[in-house]
């Protein structure tokens, strides 16, 4: 009886070992395949990125924030604060990062501040530009397209 149990356990252990071995070999095969694919992708669809300058890469990944952030960095003082209007959360987070120490607030989350902050400019994207005569348009010098507009709050 004991001998029978022993051989049964031995058989189960052998099957488990075989399964584990097959799993790991399959895993290795998968890893090598994916490594090959990664290089194929790097030399194929990602190859154009090698020849781009830092500015061109920024432009390729974030068309609008790059133009707006350059304008803000160039024309606004470091202590200025901006209120962004619109629903573009991605633009808000990128601008907040790119133009620091100038502060950027967003109308969608301004309610989260316990004390309402102050801002000296209102920023609109090309999708929600108001018809104000005081608006300073931010224009892409290459394509001549409007990227957004700034309005000074005390004007």
């Amino acid at each position, binding site marked *: 009886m004991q001998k029978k149990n022993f051989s049964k356990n031995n058989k189960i252990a052998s099957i488990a070992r075989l399964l*584990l071995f097959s799993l790991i070999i399959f895993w290795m095969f998968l890893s090598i395949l994916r490594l090959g694919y990664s290089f194929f992708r790097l030399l194929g669809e990602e190859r154009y990125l090698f020849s781009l300058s830092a500015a061109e890469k920024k432009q390729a*990944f974030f068309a609008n924030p790059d133009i707006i952030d350059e304008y803000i960095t160039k024309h606004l003082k470091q202590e200025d604060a901006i209120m962004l209007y619109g629903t573009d959360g991605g633009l808000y987070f990128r601008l907040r990062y790119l133009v620091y120490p100038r502060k950027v607030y967003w109308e969608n989350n301004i309610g989260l*501040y316990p004390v309402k902050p102050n801002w000296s400019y209102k920023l609109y994207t090309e999708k929600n530009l108001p018809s104000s005569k005081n608006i300073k348009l931010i224009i892409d010098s290459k394509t001549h397209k409007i990227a957004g507009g700034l309005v000074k709050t005390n004007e």
Partner: protein
Amino acid sequence: MNEILLIIYVCFLSLIGATILDIAKIFSGRSKLLLFSIGFGVGVSMIIIQMFLFSWLGIAWSREVLFGPWLLWLVLYGIAKRGKISHLSISLPKGSIEKVLLVLLVILFCYAAIESQLRPVIGWDAVATWFMTGKGFFIDGGIRPEFYRYLQIQDNPPGMGLILSSFYVLIGKVDDQVTLLFFTVFYGMLLCAFLSLLSEKMPLRYSLFFTFLFASTQELLRQAGRFEAGYADLPLAYFFFVSTCLSLEYFGKRNFRSIVVVSFLSAVPIFIKNEGSTMYIILAFLWLSSLKKTKNLFALVTGFTLFAFWNVFKLNQGLQLSYLFKGSLDLTRTTAIFSGVMSEFINISRWNLLWIAFFILIFLFKKTKENVLLLLIIFLQLWVYILIYFITPLNPAAQIIGSFDRLLLHLMPLVMFFIALTSYDILIRPKLFDAKSK
């Protein structure tokens, strides 16, 4: 130019850490690869803590103030150890399989490094949190509570921001493109630490094999250089791996100097991400449970001091302690959470077969004290992660899709270590034993 400075800076950090580990007599007589890969983490931790304390005490950050003391330390170490420092010797493995595996690992590292330089900082969390704090700390010249309130990330630890801004202090400007390489370095150091710890437990051929399986996981590569480079999850995974492996070595031991350093390292994740605090609490409980044997309570104080530093700082500056204290447990989410979690475990495109192998091996592993403790640590931390989804005010199903992969990454090196040890025990060791007995 900044790329070269970054490489020099990484070597500098590794040297600082290696000298500290040498003085603490950790890794004496063990591989230099292990010494320098874990030394990097110690060096990073020392700079983080130094910058944090200097900021709190109002000492302005400058190259001289931040790096001068460490240069002096290295010079003094060199003088004290004159003639006793063993030279670094690089020897390639002899077998052809080993050479092929090593080449594959080098290719993976180079791939991650190239990828990290192809794109600007684009990861959402990198832009919104980690690189934002790095830039903010550098421009503000310290950690300002107003800056934390402005970002609305009041309970986020400052470690990643501090290490990024330390490099900005060194080069005198913000260069986020080059700084992305820091994350590839964390990847490389994690692989080196993994390989050297594993090669102490099995022949080099098998340890290289398992390190390759580990290194080629897509989720890891994404954070090492692809789209999610710049997230704090990979550095946290590195620190979890290092601190847990060292803790497992030193539980129940009496070496005072080593325990001071290991206890310090086990608390460093607190400064990297919020999840680091729960890991520290788990490790601290295990340390405390071995106190009867070691009677080294004083040595454990180093880790607790770090834990206290960050929390006292938050209290003192009026910042939020943790969002976890705000919510309550919602058990009606169980089905949604369970299905979300399960679908992540079987996501082969992200993890290859890692989690599937892990869940099979937990029924087959050899019940040694080390294996049991390792599993206990993994499951306790995993349980905390799942618990978060029962508490968070956000929609758990959407949050699992957006965050659970990153949480799993923290535990992935430990899980892979367990898989490697157990697979070796089941598949290879019996064959080697048979061959020897014949």
